[in-house]
């Protein structure tokens, strides 16, 4: 049973477009949702995170939209660049310590 689900295994956009990566979850007790960016050969790097008391979090070109009632969230990458091509992981906290990850979405940004 997958507790954190990322709807697309792969997503391709053109440079300059907004990439939208979707994530849903099952456990209504989750209250903290970080997103990570991972390049080949590297560990995941924390990109942006949101708490369930908020419905939006913005950091530069990256925005999380959160819908608590529907138990889903999305990461929007505005003005996508080829350098944004990476794997993006959605994650969620079940308690203060245990963090559960989705399977990741491979984003390809074409020049």
């Amino acid at each position, binding site marked *: 049973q997958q507790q954190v689900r990322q709807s697309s*295994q792969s997503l391709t956009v053109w440079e300059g477009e907004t990439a939208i990566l979707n994530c849903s979850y099952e456990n209504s007790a989750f209250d*903290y949702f970080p997103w*990570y960016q991972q390049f080949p050969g*590297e*560990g995941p790097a*924390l990109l942006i995170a949101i708490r369930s008391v908020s419905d939006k979090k913005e950091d530069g070109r990256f925005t999380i939209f959160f819908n608590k009632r529907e138990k889903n969230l999305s990461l929007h990458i505005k003005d996508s660049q080829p350098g944004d091509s990476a794997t993006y992981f959605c994650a969620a906290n079940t308690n203060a*310590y245990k*963090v559960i990850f*989705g399977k*990741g979405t491979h984003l390809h940004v074409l020049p």
Partner: protein
Amino acid sequence: GGIITQTPKFLIGQEGQKLTLKCQQNFNHDTMYWYRQDSGKGLRLIYYSITENDLQKGDLSEGYDASREKKSSFSLTVTSAQKNEMAVFLCASSIANQAPLFGEGTRLSVL
């Protein structure tokens, strides 16, 4: 800034061998984690530790042992390496209810 150092970066083992992976962090974080990353399966939690000498099992703990010798270090032992096993083992650390920060990973291949 701090850093998480995983050793070794690459590990080649033989079937049935006991293998130990090490992780050090200088963030002074209380919580440390070991995740396994397989292609297409995201990150799966093996063990985590919320303080020195504490151990908590994750979803994938069978076949592994872990040890939190001191606050800054967390080691993982593969008790019996499986033939043709290939995976990346990621160590992370965090303070309570914050997103874990990851090391670069140890890449395991079993012959």
